[in-house]
């Protein structure tokens, strides 16, 4: 048996009847089947009202609409880049809605769905991808840190923040987002060691979307990712990342445990990136169309919609109203993006330091004088 096939066997122990990435998974926490049927899990009871269910559906639809609009804006030349979250809406909305007001999220650069749940203005996220700023929202006021582009670096920030919460005696936790590729980073491993050592109130929320740009999960790990946690000394759980209810329940439980002083949890949200890594990527070079078809059957929005319809929690009027709200959001994003003012050139100097340096002040003055020289001419 070759090394490669052995690896595949370890990651997907029962390849069986699904697509290569959809083995039968006895450990997968699921509360809503892909067909929209509500099932119970012995460890994760979830009491969710009709109103909450409708709100979750609304979140999922609006987040996707935002994402589709941003992708279109990139194609029209309005954004330099966009990192689509399509397929991962349930993982992000479920995790974001599990957070309490005082909790702090540490996103990668794809957590637009979490941003939405923290009431970050979509335009403040888009402004980063347009190149206007490095993220326009207030991380302290929203409880949603700025995006971190260096893979995995934010997991240490979340852990340190959690150590601060601990010292403050705060009833709150940090939620560190990461992807499957990030689990190979040394810093992510250090974050888990620190978190375990100090029993820091931090939850590692890993969206395993099966690919790190082009590299499949088999290139990152020879064991299912959630099993890594046991090596660090804290619980790991794999949840159906396309099931917003399961993600909500699992993340709520992990955050509650963290706040109570039980230390970290590693959550592997098993999902799939339906789109490209970013608008600069061409996934047709590294994955098969058949995979996409398999995962489309597990679409997080269709599954919740089926559940809402089947249980009578929502009707056509509700779905139409959400779609109409999506249209309004899309218009706001479109016009807001195109209407963003150009940043002033002097802004590059203005926030480098809390206390600027004489050198930088001089460079700024020279910059202003240089540009003024053209105006006089």
């Amino acid at each position: 048996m070759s090394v490669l096939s052995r690896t595949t066997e370890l990651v997907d122990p029962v390849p069986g009847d699904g697509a290569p990435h959809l083995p039968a998974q006895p450990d997968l926490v699921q509360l809503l089947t892909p067909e929209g049927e509500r099932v119970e899990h012995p460890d994760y009871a979830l009491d969710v009202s009709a109103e909450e269910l409708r709100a979750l559906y609304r979140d999922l639809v609006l987040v996707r609409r935002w994402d589709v609009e941003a992708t279109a804006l990139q194609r029209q030349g309005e954004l330099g880049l966009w990192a689509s979250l399509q397929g991962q809406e349930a993982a992000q909305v479920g995790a974001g809605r599990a957070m309490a007001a005082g909790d702090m999220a540490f996103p990668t650069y794809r957590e637009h769905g979490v941003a939405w749940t923290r009431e970050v203005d979509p335009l403040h996220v888009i402004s980063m991808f347009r190149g206007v700023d490095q993220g326009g929202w207030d991380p302290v006021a929203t409880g949603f840190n700025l995006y971190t582009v260096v893979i995995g670096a934010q997991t240490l920030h979340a852990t340190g923040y959690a150590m601060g919460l601990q010292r403050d005696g705060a009833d709150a936790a940090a939620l560190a987002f990461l992807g499957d590729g990030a689990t190979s980073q040394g810093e992510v491993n250090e974050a888990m060691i620190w978190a375990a050592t100090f029993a820091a109130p931090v939850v590692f929320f890993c969206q395993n979307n099966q690919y790190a740009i082009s590299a499949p999960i088999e290139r990152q790990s020879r064991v299912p990712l959630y099993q890594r946690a046991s090596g660090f000394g804290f619980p790991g759980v794999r949840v159906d990342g396309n099931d917003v209810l399961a993600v909500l329940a699992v993340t709520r439980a992990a955050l509650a445990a963290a706040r109570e002083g039980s230390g970290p949890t590693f959550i592997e949200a098993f999902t799939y990136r339906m789109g490209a890594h970013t608008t600069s990527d061409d996934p047709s070079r590294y994955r098969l169309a058949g995979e996409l078809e398999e995962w489309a059957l597990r679409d997080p929005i269709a599954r919740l919609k089926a559940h809402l319809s089947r249980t009578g929690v929502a009707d056509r009027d509700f779905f139409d109203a959400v779609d109409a709200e999506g249209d309004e959001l899309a218009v706001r994003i479109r016009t807001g993006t195109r209407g963003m003012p150009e940043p002033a050139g002097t802004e590059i100097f203005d926030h480098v330091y809390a206390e600027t340096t004489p050198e930088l002040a001089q460079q700024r003055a020279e910059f202003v004088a240089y540009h003024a020289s053209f105006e006089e001419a």
Partner: protein
Amino acid sequence: MADTTTLGKALNLGLRRAMEDDAKVVLMGEDIGRLGGVFRITDGLQKDFGEQRVVDTPLGEAGILGTAVGLAMRGYRPVCEIQFDGFVFPAYNQIVTQVAKLHARSRGRLPMPIVIRIPFGGGIGAVEHHSESPEAYFAHTAGLKVVAVSTPADAYWGIQQAIAHPDPVVFLEPKRRYWEKGVVDPDATPGPLFGSRVVRGGDDVTVLAYGPMVKTALQAAEVAAGEGRSLEVVDLHALSPLDLDPVYDSVRRTGRCVVVHEAPVTLGLGAEIAARVTEACFHSLEAPVLRVGGYDTPYPPAKLEEDYLPDLDRVLDAVDRSLGF
């Protein structure tokens, strides 16, 4: 009440006072608690301030700096000890991509009052990675500030000023001078954190140094005086931002300038300083600005470090070349 103390002990006293002054100051590092650090700079602090404020971390420099970022976001003022200069590189990613950039990235919403203490430089007969001078990497990075102390008084005040400063400060400690003694007066008024100081007046050549090389430069000046040559020695102290106005004043009088550091000369601090001095003092210069530093080699084994490190004779050789130009 002024006391004579070593540079290492002065740092310890400065850290203690900073911790007394501000409950948000948290020390983090490898072996800094029970052991008091491999150089004993944090000796006794964990006993007096507890494990929450003097944290023996797991062994990982990226972990130290990365968690310091999170603590800073919670309003803490982390003081991170890197055990030796050559061990800072696992933390380099966090320092350069996160610590240095978060204030700008957040438009000032996330200040990073983090101090990164690094014992730096050679001359102690150590094994590889224990004798390096990495200051140029940090001085080249926007968002960081870099200082190098040279005396016990400097160390005592400098560490307190760095901790109170709102921006991240890479704080370089000349490890071979940890045991040098000097007077520390806790009631004195300290000089500015980012200010250079003229530490010996002179008329013939301006010699610039920082950290461990200040003492070497002063020794060179003493010997030169015996030969009838008057060297003005400036302790740069601040490497980013540089405070060169006193240097320009000096060079305009002497017309000659020699920069000394242990780090390799190519693209080192001396190169930047030479460019600036040339630009500011062009019409006063009688000779090109000369640099004395380490060679463009990896730091050598201990038996060869005296060949590598600038010493009194190499400083005087550069002075001779400057005067003979």
